């Protein structure tokens, strides 16, 4: 167990959000690069999970790492999530920096006790004496007919429970910078990547799943949202794959003279409340676009954040989320409940005329 005495190890400081440069990677590669680079520099970092070694991660989060680092540091586990996530916690408590993959976030129910009662609470319960510098990495999201147990995002569930940071990259650049920040963080970080932003060969590709990524190491600070498109009529507050749909809609509606601002939250914990308030102040019309279940989640928190700050700010508030229904299997049904571009567009049109 590590006694808290400032940062555990001196680390060279890294550039914060440098210029993107011209090299283009998909999100999966950017993620692998962040992990690989940190592993090269720090022996205490290792990766553990189901099918992370020879398979390279079901969603390619660890492709190529076994070849580089061998089976002592890229470790396949039995299907024993409580045991191996707990193992990660114990190793972190002794000063290692585990990156543990939970294959699908939908499986949280078999191991949530380790996550929320242990990983997230030990630092507090120990009065700051014990740190848990661990990354819990997990795939989220639907859109490819994987049904009710393999298509959820569930970030609201994690963000509701205190003690863990919750990071949700939407593109390759952020994926690398946020993973680097997560590995270097002395706090436990839940890193949720949407399958649909990874740029996987075997899934419908969003054109923004490939983008410019610096070769050097850098961090995207955890807790800073980003205005990914400026606008003045309506704000789309969103994250993850929904950023791309939101940008698509914003581009399209720009032709009609509707000016849409898009805020990519990038993390739920910490939530960049200032950025939320800033965009609300600017447009007065806020639509939350969220692939998580609508009620008791992110969209409500955005409303509360604004209302608490100044209820007069809001001229319009609406939500394009998954209504409170298990994710259906059939494509027709699933796309009826996902936050599609069509639903976002309709919501923006309603907002501008409101």
């Amino acid at each position, binding site marked *: 167990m590590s006694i808290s005495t400032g940062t555990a190890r001196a680390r060279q400081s890294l550039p914060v959000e440098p210029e993107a440069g011209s090299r283009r990677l998909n999100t999966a590669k950017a993620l692998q690069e962040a992990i690989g680079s940190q592993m090269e520099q720090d022996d205490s970092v290792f990766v553990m999970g189901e099918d992370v070694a020879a398979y390279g991660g079901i969603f390619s989060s660890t492709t190529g790492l076994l070849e580089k680092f061998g089976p002592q540091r890229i470790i396949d586990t039995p*299907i024993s999530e409580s045991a191996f996530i707990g193992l990660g916690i114990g190793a972190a408590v002794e000063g290692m920096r585990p990156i543990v993959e939970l294959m699908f976030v939908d499986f949280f129910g078999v191991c949530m006790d380790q996550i929320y009662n242990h990983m997230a609470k030990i630092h507090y319960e120990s009065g700051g004496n014990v740190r848990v510098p661990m990354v819990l990495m997990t795939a989220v999201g639907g859109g490819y007919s994987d*049904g009710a147990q393999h298509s959820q995002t569930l970030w609201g569930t994690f963000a509701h429970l205190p003690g863990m940071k919750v990071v949700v990259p939407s593109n390759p650049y952020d994926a690398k910078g946020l993973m680097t920040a997560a590995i270097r963080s002395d706090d436990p970080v839940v890193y949720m990547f949407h399958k649909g932003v990874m740029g996987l060969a075997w899934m419908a590709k969003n054109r923004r799943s490939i983008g410019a990524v610096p070769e050097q190491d850098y961090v995207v600070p955890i807790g800073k949202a980003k205005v990914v498109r400026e606008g003045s009529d309506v704000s789309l507050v969103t994250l993850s794959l929904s950023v791309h749909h939101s940008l698509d809609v914003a581009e399209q509606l720009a032709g009609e003279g509707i000016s849409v601002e898009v805020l990519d939250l990038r993390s739920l914990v910490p939530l960049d409340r200032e950025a939320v308030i800033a965009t609300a102040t600017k447009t007065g019309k806020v639509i939350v676009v969220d692939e998580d279940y609508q009620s008791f989640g992110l969209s409500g928190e955005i409303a509360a954040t604004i209302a608490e700050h100044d209820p007069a700010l809001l001229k319009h508030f609406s939500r394009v989320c998954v209504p409170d229904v298990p994710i259906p299997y059939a494509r027709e049904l699933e796309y009826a409940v996902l936050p599609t571009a069509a639903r976002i567009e309709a919501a923006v049109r309603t907002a501008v005329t409101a």
Partner: protein
Amino acid sequence: MTMETTEVTADLSTGQRLALLREMILIRTFEEAVLREYHADKSPGFDIGKGLIPGEMHLSAGQEPVAAGLCAHLETGDALTATHRPHHLAIAKGMDLRSLAGEIFGRESGLGHGRGGHMHLFDPATHFSCSGIVAEGFPAALGQAFAFQRAGTSNVAAAVAGEGAANAGPFHESLNLAALWKLPVIFVIEDNDWGISVARNASTSVPTNAVRAAGYGMPGVRVEGNDVEAVHAAAGEAVARARAGGGPSLIEVHTLRLWGHFEGDAQGYRPELADVPGRDPIPAYQRKLRDAGLLSEADLAEMEGEARTRVEDAVEHAKAAPAPNPAEALKYVFVEGE
């Protein structure tokens, strides 16, 4: 508390043997049709979300002996819970093929009106259910067995999962509880050597889960050889014990995943890949019956023909069925309207 390696040559009638083969052929025919339809419209490239059958697809080819051997002992009123790889068991349990195909195609005609998909099949008619969460199908079987016991019936519940699932907590909790309360449950582990890309010996600290039965005070047996008759014998004992109030049993069958973990799995991690087709249990069983003079070419042709007819009927029916109405996506969250 026993652990035996069984090589049973059970005393089966020719009719029983042919029925086992017929069941396995029906299952394989169904899965080959799903395979065909699944890949028919995913190109160019391979897009998992595309086509008439989208999503993950876990086929059970090679594991038919488990389904046929076990389900030969189960009645309609008995329960069966399965996993992400459920078709062989669903079919052997007697699920209507049209309802099954309809659900796989995501149609309104499907078992779950397209809400469930191939990992989430719930059939009140055959008391069949499954779950896409590894090992989480075990507990439901306890509850069904409990309900049967309380109702004073002699019905039993079978719970089937892979060897990977046997390292998950609910396996342990369920075996203990079933043994403690003498519930009529048959636990069946399909050891197909792999949990996705993780080999059995990289996940399991003992050579067979059969030895774990002793930790619950229940009989445990391992069936080698992926032999439908050996499964039939072991399952027969276990089912009879459960029906007679003798409590639960554990059976592990060393079986074979003939194809990938799911469709699209290149199986680069699998060294023995070249040998796999040669270990197919269905031709092997056909050979055995043919050699013993119990199976004629005509018999076989009839079985295959019947299977093809039934399967293609189910597939056609599914393709012709309407898609679910998007306006009804929220229907069925609750029984009583919110």
